């Protein structure tokens, strides 16, 4: 059922963007949030919550900005690949250290690192443009030079394709031996080690994957905005990713996007009708989710479909 929701959702996004041009930017933003939260929820499957993954969004976004400013003629797809490469490399190096920590230390160390980078990005004026950030030209996509409206439409298609591909990939990973072992870290790490598996290696693989996902989201975000500021690496964004991942649940890769949909809806609703207290609404939502549905939206759906199967039998 969740796979079906994924396909319907992807087609719905494209239809919405085609029918209502104003919805293209919020859709891309929402999907970017979903991608980043998917990265966080990969780590959450191992019971590790990172409060600093916005770092990789910043790495992806600044890679796009630096490359396109150095080589203005470069294509958007190449930019995305470069961002993937750099954020993956960064995740591989940082991950070597991070996999030694569990629980709150894991979360805090990620947070600390992202804060250092965030602060540096804001201060290193000649290099990163400081808090004003870096502005960049609209890149070509697959060789086509596009006007703003067409660029947004094409970018929406690219984003939806990325999302579908990533959800498929992550879901395959969850079902693979390494992915099942990853969930084993949450259940009982000692037992995993007794089975002859290296918990650190498994966690490292997941960490690189999560860095890739968040990096891709940051790069797409930079391309749709045309502007990269240090704000993209702020810890509040890391918090939002965690929020969405919890809301959606880490049981299925689609969860992050269901969570992102709810998140964006609450935010839009609050911005329209209850300006000034949208954070309170989000907080209350989170409280209810934790008390009533600790496994998120995906967990709720699974529980329902299990009930139905039992009634059928």
């Amino acid at each position, binding site marked *: 059922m969740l796979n079906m929701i994924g396909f319907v959702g992807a087609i719905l996004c494209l239809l919405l963007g085609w029918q209502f041009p104003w919805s293209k930017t919020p859709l891309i933003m929402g999907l970017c949030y979903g991608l980043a939260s998917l990265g966080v929820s990969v780590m959450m499957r191992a019971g590790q919550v990172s409060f600093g993954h916005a770092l990789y969004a910043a790495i992806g976004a600044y890679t796009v900005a630096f490359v396109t400013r150095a080589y203005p003629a470069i294509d958007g797809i190449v930019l995305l690949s470069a961002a993937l490469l750099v954020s993956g490399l960064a995740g591989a190096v940082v991950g070597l250290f991070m996999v*030694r920590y569990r629980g709150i230390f894991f979360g*805090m160390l990620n947070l600390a690192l992202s804060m250092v980078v965030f602060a540096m990005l804001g201060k290193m004026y000649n290099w990163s443009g400081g808090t004003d950030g870096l502005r960049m030209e609209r890149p070509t996509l697959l060789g086509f030079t596009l006007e703003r409206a067409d660029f947004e439409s094409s970018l929406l298609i690219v984003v939806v394709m990325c999302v579908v591909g990533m959800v498929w990939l992550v879901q395959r990973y969850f079902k693979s031996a390494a992915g099942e072992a990853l969930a084993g870290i949450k259940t009982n790490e000692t037992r995993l080690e007794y089975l002859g598996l290296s918990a650190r290696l498994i966690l490292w693989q997941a960490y690189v994957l999560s860095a890739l996902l968040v990096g891709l989201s940051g790069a797409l975000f930079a391309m749709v905005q045309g502007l990269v500021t240090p704000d993209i690496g702020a810890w509040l964004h890391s918090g939002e990713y965690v929020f969405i991942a919890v809301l959606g649940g880490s049981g299925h890769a689609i969860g992050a996007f269901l969570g992102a949909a709810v998140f964006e809806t609450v935010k839009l609703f609050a911005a329209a009708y209850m300006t000034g*207290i949208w954070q309170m609404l989000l907080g209350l939502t*989170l409280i209810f989710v934790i008390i009533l549905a600790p496994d998120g939206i995906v967990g709720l759906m699974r529980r329902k479909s299990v009930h139905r199967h039992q009634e059928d039998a």
Partner: protein
Amino acid sequence: MNLDLVLLAVADGVSYAGLLFMVSLGLTLICGVMGIVNVAHGALYAFGGYAACTLSLQVMQNTPSTFLLLLVLPIAALMVGLVLGTAIEAGLLRRIQGRDPVQQLLMTFAGFMVLEDVQRLIWGTQPYSAPDIIGRLGTVNFFNVTYTSYQLVLIPLMALISYAGLMFFLRFTSTGRQVVAVTHHREMATALGINAKRVGWLTFVLGATLGALGGAMAAPTTSMVPGAGADMIVLSFAVVATAGMGQITGALLASLMIGLTRSAAVYLAPEWEVAVPYLIMALVLLVRPDGLFTVAQARRI
């Protein structure tokens, strides 16, 4: 860098470390006893600060006494700690007791989001301050440096009083020893007749009050603005993680370390100021993954 500047940097660092320590003390106490990292602690800091500003404005108009004006700070902190501490502990945390620590962490994160907006609804977005206190207490001179006595004497003094008071409470009073017992083994302590629920509440309110006290003491020196709580919580996290969870004396040393290094950075390399506490924390955790002062513990099976 001449001697005066060094002294000035040390004074800055000590005063800042005092504030940082009071907030971290509350955080590490709650963490040690309940095993919860309380993200809402940042909101308690902010509420303490705002409440102190509002109260001291009222008191200032009605009495010329400096002592009463100073007394306002701990009273504001106690009020905030009692009300919000009880609300968070009984309203949120008790409902998910015994669940995954990550969920408890997220619960306090949700509480923090709600409280941030409540604070904005009560006090708005304009900056608040309680500056008169510093002026009334005057300045102190040492060597060639002049510094406000509030920041150089009162804040570190208050931090040391909190530290000594908490140590005395935990070591020498019956309730305090019950808190320690629950920290070591909740189930065993309950079996011995300790009311673990009450101890949990007490610890949380105590920790919350310390966080609010940090805010109240900071109120005269800075202006309270939205977002102040978020900055503080991340910083005091760094202190607690550097020292090791639940290490009270460790937190004292770690705040001094971070406070002094930070003020040195302000004079030597200003652009590194924000990053310094996290660099220290990352370096410490790389060498000692459980913090500087954590003692090895036997694993319970």
